């Protein structure tokens, strides 16, 4: 797993995080290409099931990026998202997974540099954690099947 390139899903709210990602691009600030953004109107829309399904389908890490606390365009969508992320983290812990595979990050629309920095930090963290356990199981199965 030396050259492990994780697959990371970032659920970004339209008003802040998605705009910040565009801002990073327009300032030509680089961040790991591992991060793939799925745009949602508000992080409050992100359901625990979305995060879990992303992990089930093969994501090595998932983060939800919304507006700064107190700045949510829908009042408290981002604080609700934080609760849900924390809930998923506990659930992962019960499963014996690393809870750090999921995270909640807050930023404003103007924080392009911050977007890039957190994308890098999260990717580095997932690299340290290694691949999604499901993928390892699947690979093992495949290998067994082959042998």
């Amino acid at each position: 797993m030396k050259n492990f390139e994780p697959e990371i899903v970032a659920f970004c709210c339209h008003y802040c995080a998605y705009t910040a990602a565009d801002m990073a691009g327009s300032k030509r600030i680089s961040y790991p290409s591992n991060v793939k953004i799925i745009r949602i109107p508000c992080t409050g829309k992100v359901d625990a099931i979305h995060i879990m399904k992303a992990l089930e389908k093969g994501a090595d890490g998932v983060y939800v990026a919304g507006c700064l606390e107190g700045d949510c365009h829908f009042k408290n969508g981002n604080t609700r998202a934080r609760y849900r992320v924390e809930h998923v983290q506990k659930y992962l812990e019960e499963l014996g997974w690393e809870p750090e595979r999921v995270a909640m990050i807050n930023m404003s629309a103007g924080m392009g540099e911050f977007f890039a920095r957190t994308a890098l930090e999260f990717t580095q963290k997932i690299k340290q954690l290694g691949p999604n356990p499901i993928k390892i199981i699947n690979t093992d199965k495949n290998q067994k099947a082959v042998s």
Partner: protein
Amino acid sequence: MQKLKNIQENKSNGRSVLVIGGGVGGIRAALDLAESRRNVILIDKSYSIGGLMTQLDRTFPTNNCDLCTVSPHLSENTRQIHLDLKPMTQLEQLTGETGNFEATLVTEPRYIDIDKCTACGECHKHFPEAVRFTPGLDPRAPTCMRYPQATPYAFSIDMEKVGDIEALQKVCKADAIIPDDMQKKITVEAASVVLSVGAELFDPAVLDNFGSGQFDNVVTGLEYERIMSASGPFQGDLVRVSDKKQPKKVAWIQCVGSRGINKADVPYCSGVCCMYALKEAIVTKERFAESIETTIFYMDMRTYGKDYELYLNRAKNDYGVKMIRSRPHSIIENSETKNLSITYAVEEEALQKTEDFDMVVLSTGFRIPETTIDLANRLGIELNPHNFAKTDHFNPVVTSKPGVYVCGVVESPKDIPETMVQASAAASMAASDLPAIMDVPESENDFMPERDVSGEEPKIGVFICDCGLEIGGVVDVDKMVEFSGTMPHVVVSQAVGYGCSSDSMAMIEASIKTNNLNRVVIGGCSPRTHETKFQDLVRRAGLNKYLVEIVNLRDQNTWAHMGQPREALDKAFKLLGIGISGVCKSRPLMDQTLPMNQNALVVGGGVTGMTAALQLAGQGIKVYLVERSPALGGLAKSIRKTIEGDDVRPFMNQLIDDVSANENIQVLTRSIIVDHSGIPGRFKTGIQTGPRMNYMQLDHGVTILATGALPNRPDVYGLGTHNSIVTQLELEALIENDPKKIKAMNQVVMIQCAGSREPDNPNCSRICCQTAIKNALRIHAIDPDIQIFILYRDIRTYGFQEDYYREARNLGVNFIKFSLDNKPEVWVENDRISVFVDDVILGRKIQIETDYLALSTGMIADDETTEDLSMMFHLPRTSDHYFLEDHVKLRPVDMSVRGFFIAGTTHSPKTIRESITQAYAAAGRAQTLLAKKEINLGAAVAKVDSSKCAACLICIRACPFSIPFINEDGYSYIDPAKCQGCGICAADCPAKAIQLLAFEDDQIMAKLDGLFGGLN
């Protein structure tokens, strides 16, 4: 093929505004008017609109490609039923007066019927010599279309160069050639006129010292833009003209033909060249090679715009652009290598240095051409001594002739954001000569009916933009096309060049129809900027607008990963997978609408807020003007005179009287905003008002923020420790109130950038250089014997302010330069003030004893206010606490939340005139919303599936806006007209009975499937 409708019949019953000049300013003015349901005639002498901006490679400070940023604006034109675009047309004569002008327009023959032309290019292939336009250095001059997104999209023929007309007619399959096309003259009625003809750039070939036009590798700033441009002569390769090799060392020489007193020079500053030279230097390093050495020779770096100082710092610190303060006399070419040597004086050492460069760029500024002087005569407007339009003392868009307004560079040199602000202001003023907006009835505008796609299997068309080199230069478009073609349900997959250009749009529209597509994926730039455009496109093609998905291949891929093309391609595949898989689950949706509240809230009762309030009130709009202090007036009340010598006080008193007397304005002083709710077009804002702080709720459709900035009072240079160490504002008050005290002085010292352009407050305060010079001139007028010293870092007297700087120097005001790492020191001993400063010319520290020390402290954002309001209204701020507009270039007064606008110093430091312009602009932009009777809420609303709802009340508790309720049938109901579309209820619903339309769970799952398609 998109066509401009000729809607002459629409126009006959309503009066129009005539906009002359279709550059970016004219387009903005015309669009603002059309969006406010005003009829506009936009004429341009060229065969397609866009002006100078379309020739630029990228624009500062975002370094975006201009074509992409301007093209949505250009094609917006084609949607407007109130807009009549007349290319190749000039004004011959204007008679009559405000409200009742008669304009005679002359249209040159195009020899092509633009309604028939499909822009296939066959005529050009066979008759390449019939070409009129050569952008920059382009030797190929591929077409008469100046750039791929040309509007209107049609060729134009130079008939004199066509030998065989019959052969030309045969070549055209569309039968669009009109060989006997003739000049047409028409007369139109106009209530008012907006002049936005821009200016030319100075041609340095008339100077013999820089070798422009003689030396291959000496180019102008615009020519350098063309060389770097993907649509330029070298297809976007940065190469020298002489040997087509990439240069290793490039130099820029600033102020060529500007700020000079020599033959062919103009005395004013062109205001934009410092920024464009920085931009060109940064882009050179960023796009071509980090190793290319870039050097800028300058007199003063004038980065006075919002956040522009940060751009300068980035250029110096992050990109290593070399800055040399020197004005080289000449360039000498080595006849063999074609290299160029520049000899320049080194500031710190008393010697001259000679250095060789591979390329030299001459930063040339704006000039008013003879044709504009002639046009001004025909319009009957006066010009200033520099031949720019002469304007009102306190309103830069008002000319000497009533009913004729002006915007953009023809008023004074300026950059694109300022042009946009003036354009919106001029449009707003021009509209005030028409019947009030509230009295204009609304007309219907319908597209063709939507095709019913229910029950059909997805048939997807994938269209991938290369965006010039922005996408195609990093990842292989063909590979993406090939990849997309292998995805399920994709029946069409193809590259479209610039997807937002008119021809590509027409091609996509045709493809949707001929292939009977029912889903569309566009791989291009951000949906934030271009989604509406492509939604309109699929709508025109008969599809519901929610059946298109935009995949962000540029802003979130090739721009961010330009250094890792392999990774970028892999990511592009995955993003396309997400988009294609997701669009399969898209459903046709209906937009929700609600009636618009046509009142306006203006926050801040300074000069900006009052001006905006009056302008809106004049249109019959009810305005609430909320001011926290007990009286109107703001910071401008403490300013006495402008640099031009105009009295501010009578003007302010008049303004306050007008506002107080206006029936449509309710002034609420001693009022603070305490709560806010609602949606754009239907806001509710709670205030506490009056001495007793009574609560009051205001209903309004739009909000203009004009809360101003604060005078800065930093703890520097002994400010506050001595009575004679003061700010410029205090000095100005003394000049006004106690000239005797000034007369008693022998020496006055001023220190610039006190507390600005420093690490903890990095931006330039913009106003201080002209304030210092204004006060210096006034002191000199009181007593010419007073010695005045201005200690500065760069003098930033942009535009015509340069005249006052020159006057001050001529009158003997001493200007001494210092640097950030060697600032002056102030000593107070026995009540005497001494200033120590290094004099570069003398090469030693000098001591100036002074009677009075004025510090140019400038402005600072009102952090507390902007923080409170940004929390309340959910608006972003800049790092130095000013409000952050939606787009620094194209939407400089609009905020990211619809219905919010900013103006004045709450946006960034600026003069009274500039604040007033922005106030008119914000009022104009607000009218584009208020002119509509309905608000479109979009379709992203939550919907309850009653068969799954258990009436558990979780959604009722979860909704931040208290919208859901249990209806008489016993299940949850969410009113689509009230739903804000956040989707919080959908996420919380345990039965999954709620779906947020356009973001349904199966769509999100499908997107994840698209991303991990290869893994599961």
